C-alpha cells in the first residue's frame, strides 16, 4: 500500500474550499503529500511543530488572531496533545478542528500503531469530542467544512478521522 496522491489532493482541496488559511501539523506518512501541497501554497501558512501538544497552543493563538486554522496530526499525536486539548482548548472554550490520521486500525500491518489505533475512538468519546470517520473522497470536502463550522459554533474540539480507506491505495 502507499499513500493516495489523488485523495491527498482531494483532502487538501477540501481544506482550501473550507476557507482555511493556516495549518499546524506534525508530519507523518499519511499526511506527507497533503503537507507538501500546503508548503507550496502561498495562501496557506503551515506551522510545523516539534510535538503535537504545541499545535494546540498555536491553534489557540491563531483563533485569537481571527485566523481560520486547522490541525493535522496522527492519532498518536492526538494522544500526546491531550493536556493541551483538555486544559487549554476545553477549559477556555477555544475551538479546534483536528484532522487526525487514524493509524493502527482495520488492515494495520504494523504492530506499533495498533494500541493507539484501538483506543482513539474511546478517548474521543471519553472527552466528548464530536468526531466522524472520513472514508469517501466524495464526502471528505463536505466533512472538513462541517467539522470546521461545528468547532466554531460549539467552541469545542472536533475531530475528523482520516481512515486507511481514504488515505491509502494499492501499490
Amino acid at each position, binding site marked *: 500500500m502507499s499513500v493516495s496522491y489523488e485523495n491527498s489532493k482531494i483532502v487538501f482541496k477540501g481544506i482550501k474550499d473550507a476557507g482555511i488559511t493556516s495549518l499546524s501539523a506534525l508530519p507523518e506518512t499519511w499526511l506527507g503529500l497533503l503537507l507538501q501541497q500546503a508548503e507550496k501554497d502561498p495562501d496557506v501558512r503551515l506551522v510545523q511543530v516539534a510535538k503535537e501538544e504545541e499545535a494546540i*497552543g498555536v491553534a489557540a493563538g491563531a483563533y485569537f488572531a481571527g485566523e481560520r486554522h486547522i490541525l493535522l496530526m496522527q492519532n498518536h499525536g492526538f494522544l500526546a496533545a491531550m493536556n493541551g486539548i483538555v486544559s487549554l482548548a476545553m477549559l477556555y472554550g477555544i475551538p479546534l478542528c483536528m484532522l487526525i490520521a487514524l493509524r493502527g486500525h482495520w488492515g494495520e500491518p504494523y504492530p506499533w500503531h495498533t494500541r493507539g489505533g484501538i483506543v482513539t475512538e474511546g478517548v474521543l468519546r471519553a472527552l466528548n469530542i464530536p468526531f466522524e470517520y472520513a472514508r469517501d473522497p466524495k464526502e471528505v470536502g463536505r466533512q472538513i467544512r462541517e467539522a470546521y463550522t461545528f468547532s466554531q459554533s460549539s467552541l469545542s474540539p472536533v475531530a475528523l478521522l482520516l481512515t486507511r480507506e481514504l488515505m491509502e491505495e494499492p501499490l
Partner: protein
Amino acid sequence: MSLKRAECIAMLYPELDDKVVVTIMGACAQELYDLGHKDNFFYLQHAMGLASSVGLGLALHLPRERVVVLDGDGSVLMNLGTLATLARYQPRNLVHVIFDNGSLLSTGGFDSHTTSGVTDLAAMARGAGIGHVAAVDSAMAFGEAAIEAFARDDLSVIVAKVAAVGPNHYGMDLHLPENAFRFKRWIAGRRDERGTTSAGR
C-alpha cells in the same frame, strides 16, 4: 537571588498597554493581574508549557502586533520543543520572557532542573537557534534587556534569574472563558481600528 519576578513585571507593565500578552499560570499570572487587568492579557492558568506556543500562534498571525509571553522555567521545561519551533519560525514580533526561579513555586516549591545552575535555559534557547537571548539577574539588566527586545524587530528571549517568591494570595475576578472571549475581542477591535484607519487614508 535578589531580583523578584514581581518587580520585573512591574517594570514591563507600563509598556504592555498596546501589546498582546500571554502569561503562564500561578504566581506570574497573579502578579500581572494584581497590577490591573487589561483585556489584552491572557492568563494560561493550566496546560503548562503552552504559553509560548500560544504566543507563536498569535505572533505569526498578527504580524502588526507585538506579542509578549511571560513564561517560567517549570513551564518551559515541560515543552522544550517550543524553543526549536520558535527558532524555526522566528516571529519578529515576539518577546519571550522566561522567569527562572529554579522552582515549581506554584505547586509546592520543589526545585526545578534549573536550580543551582545545573540546566541553563538561555544556553538551550541559543542552542535551539534563537539569535537574541539575554540572561539577566538584576533589575537594571532586566530593564535594559526589555528595552532592547521591544526596540528590536526580531524574536527575543530574556531569561531572568529571579527569587522563588510569589504573591501571598491567589484569585481573579475573571472566569477563564471570559478571559479568552475578552482577549479575542480586544484583538479583533485592534484589527477593526486599523481597518478603519487604512480605509480612511
